[in-house]
């Protein structure tokens, strides 16, 4: 089958590439673009380790062909920090509050939490738990992940208030 010419924006960078239509987005990101932040945990749409932000939605990139993402705007964990290396508040708070142990789920967790806070800047703990229910963590028991996301929300809201 012929390769497809795809064009997409990843972490603010315009990408043009040739890829087999059946190539999964996760494989495209990891193997062709060398963005190995998004992980492959289950390969069956359950764990959320492969979550990326695509056109304003959290998407499991193991369940999308790169062909479908042609034209899309994507953000991965690599696109969360500032270009100068300053971490995103979510990353800071995951570090501060031990929101990770082995770190395998973390890129997906933070990318998902980013979209959750975009949609609901002031979530309750229950809303956070429901909002990250597509992301599995085998280490933390989730408690500190919820605390970290809550802390990031508070900081982002305080910064927004200060700016107003």
């Amino acid at each position, binding site marked *: *089958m012929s390769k497809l010419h795809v064009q997409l924006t990843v972490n603010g960078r315009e990408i043009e590439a040739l890829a087999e*239509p*059946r190539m999964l987005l996760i494989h495209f990101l990891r193997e062709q673009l060398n963005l190995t932040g998004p992980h492959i945990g289950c390969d069956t*749409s359950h764990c959320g380790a492969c979550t990326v932000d695509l056109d304003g939605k959290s*998407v499991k990139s193991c369940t999308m062909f790169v062909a*479908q993402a042609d034209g899309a705007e994507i953000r991965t964990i690599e696109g969360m920090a500032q270009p100068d290396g300053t971490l995103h508040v979510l990353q800071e708070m995951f570090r501060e509050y031990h929101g990770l142990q082995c770190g395998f789920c973390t890129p997906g967790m933070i990318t998902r939490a980013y979209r959750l806070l975009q949609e609901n800047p002031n979530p309750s703990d229950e809303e956070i738990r429901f909002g*990250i229910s*597509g992301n599995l963590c085998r280490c933390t028991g989730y408690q500190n992940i919820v605390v970290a996301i809550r802390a990031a929300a508070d900081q982002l809201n305080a910064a927004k208030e200060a700016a107003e």
Partner: protein
Amino acid sequence: MISGSFEYHRPKSLDEAVGLLDQHGDDARVVAGGHSLIPMMKLRMAMLDHLIDLQAIDGLKGVREEGGNLLIGAMTTQSELIADPTLAAKCPIMAETALQIADPQVRYCGTIGGNVANGDPGNDMPALMQALDATYIAQGPNGTREIAARVFYEAVFFTALQDNEIITAVRIPTPPDGHGHAYEKQKRKIGDYATAAAAVLLTMSGGRCATAAIALTNVGDTPLYAEDAAAALIGTAVDAAAIDRAVALAEGIASPAADARGPVDFRTKLAGVMVRRAIARALERAA
């Protein structure tokens, strides 16, 4: 897991998409959100030569009310259903059900059209569509055709839809103000299909049940429209005896498979429990 090879199409119009389906027949499939189809392709349970992506076709998304009906575009995603103000006001069981499907990531992608067309008895929307007496609007090479949800499902992955037809919208008669409703689903964990689930809609008038509809998810080869169970409520005060009768009639039509979700007897009983809870909650909500 890597799917088989295919040629990818992204038609800009419905006619073009139907044309491609018609041309390639059995070798082609449409993809909407991909969250049922792609897992099947990765497992090579679905093999196809042409994948026709509906994402670029205008006019397949959104909810509007029109002459006593709610029209929902097939490409409307589950998360869009949850956020939709018209549905929240007129048909809140849509969001209640959509919120019990999978997880946030899946709901951003999964569409109503894909969920009802898929033909997997585990899907939650089909039973709800039967309870709401929805109609699917399908476009094929010879024009448009309407199929009632109550007669759409034939067997596991077999529906009344032809290979060359695309569902463009779902039409639901707007439920009357003050209707009671509930979708009760038991699952092992978030992201799991139902062990059993039930949709109930009813209206009350002068302390008596005026109308009722009940349908069951994942306790048969197809969603099950429980007509007799609902009839057992109509005209009653929805008292304990009427509810017992409805539950027994619903259990009577359930024929679940034994699988990791439990043995046949358990899932049959559970279907009854879901019906019982859904009736109670619907009754509470009915004005």
